């Protein structure tokens, strides 16, 4: 499927990344490399900084300190053309963020035309191809509001793909969906992974992480606690914090008991 070892030019490289919101230090020194074609799932409790890390990778959040490289270009360089770099980076949001005032097709053609300067016919062709890929060709003329959450998220993925990105970032793409709609979105993401797309996925879907990811990164308290294969991180975690998180995630009923334990209170408060 894809090589596990990053090549000479990692697609995404994060060095010594710090991010604070006021006095609140959310990221406390992150180093991470993601190779071409690699699929990396980032897991961790809420407030661990995983979404902030992902948003730093396309500079939706500006890092307080440290460097971010994508495709060899340093995004954190103040003189870089950030709009040009972002064209290489597709982003999928938890809340879909489709443009509600235009149709599904126009959601895909508008960015192509305005940002890439593609002609009408070409943009329409690329839009149709990508809607086909996510299985929503028949919704081309619908408005986003008439679609289910799962369909909206697949359109959002198609919209990002239509720009021809080299990297795709997913920020909890299934967290806002009803449980029965999660599968369709994950199927599209699985297809992308098999096609060799470089993907960084912040998620709580452990089954997806185990089956699709090349690597799983566990974050807590603004640092990377564990980074390894899914078998290792999910199957045989080395750190107590990882074990604790996974046990709560896989068996929520246990959490009630665990939270009562005095030594866990600080952890839960993070």
């Amino acid at each position, binding site marked *: 499927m894809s090589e596990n070892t990053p090549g000479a030019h990692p697609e995404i490289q994060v060095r010594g990344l710090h991010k604070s919101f006021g006095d609140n230090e959310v990221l406390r020194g992150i180093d991470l490399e993601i190779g071409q074609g690699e699929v990396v799932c980032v897991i961790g409790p809420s407030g661990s900084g995983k979404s902030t890390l992902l948003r730093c990778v396309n500079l939706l959040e500006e890092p307080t300190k440290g460097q971010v490289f994508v495709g060899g270009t340093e995004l954190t360089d103040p003189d870089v053309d950030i709009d040009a770099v*972002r064209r290489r980076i597709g982003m999928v949001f938890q809340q879909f963020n489709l443009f509600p005032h235009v149709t599904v097709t126009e959601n895909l053609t508008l960015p192509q035309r305005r940002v890439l300067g593609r002609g009408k016919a070409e943009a329409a062709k690329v839009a149709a191809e990508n809607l086909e890929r996510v299985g929503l060709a028949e919704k081309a003329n619908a408005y986003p509001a008439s679609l289910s959450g799962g369909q909206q998220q697949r359109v959002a993925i198609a919209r990002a793909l239509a720009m021809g990105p080299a990297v795709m970032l997913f920020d909890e793409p299934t967290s806002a969906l009803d449980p029965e709609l999660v599968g369709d979105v994950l199927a599209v993401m699985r297809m992308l992974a098999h096609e060799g797309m470089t993907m960084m996925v912040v998620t709580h879907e452990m089954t997806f992480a185990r089956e699709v990811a090349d690597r799983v990164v566990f974050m807590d308290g603004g640092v990377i606690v564990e980074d390894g294969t899914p078998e290792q991180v999910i199957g045989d975690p080395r750190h107590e914090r990882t074990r604790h998180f996974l046990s709560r995630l896989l068996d929520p009923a246990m959490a009630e008991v665990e939270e009562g334990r005095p030594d866990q209170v600080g952890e839960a408060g993070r």
Partner: protein
Amino acid sequence: MTAPAKAEDPPRKKGLTRRQKRRLSRGAQYVVFVAAVIAFAVSADWGRLKNQFAQADIAEQMFPDVITLALKNTVLFTVSGFAVGLVLGLVIALMRLSSVGPYRWLAGIYIEIFRGLPALLIFIFIGVAVPLAFPGTEIIGGTYGKVALALGLVAAAYMAETIRAGIQAVPKGQMEAARSLGFSPARAMISIIIPQAFRIILPPLTNELVLLFKDSSLVLFLGVTLEERELSKYGRDLASTTANSTPILVAGLCYLLVTIPLGFVVRRMEAKAQEAVK
């Protein structure tokens, strides 16, 4: 309530029940209303009123000029003022949201001044001060240009605040999605944010149109030619030549002819927007 109350008994207050109070209150309101209508109908001198305001022959001689000239000019003044106000208001709204401090301050000062002044003073200012300050320069379009400018200056202050609120009402994720697709901030604003903002503020903008429609009557302080008269001026002029107020009534009805349907449209749009939220 002499028997000792059991614990489950609902507490009952002495005197009127809630239902009886409600009936009494509503009944009193109807009585007051009917009394007021009767008092008004009896005390007003309808005969004199009719003589002064409802002379059919005077009303008749106003047509078709009141429509083809006066109403047309009112609409023209309003629409041109609205257009100027919209463009200027959008610029000021964007300045107000700018990251550049002086732009924000300037926009804030503009809004405070022009919202705080009566429109009448601004009309006088445009009519008197501008020609004095810049002798020789004509405002493009003569009276029409002056009215568009004066109405536009007033409207821009109100519209800027409305537009700013509309832009801020567009969810933050829209800008993030656009930026992540490679839109520059300006392009994202134009292609994604502003079109959505205008959908949100269509009802208040239409209200502003109604206000401008009425404010266009202030043009009479600029001095207009016979051909440039709008509803109020036309009605007043005719009222003084005929020594009768019927033209004022007819002019008033012409305003309502436009403002009532517009008000209806606004309420429809608001209801639809409410539905879309659900």
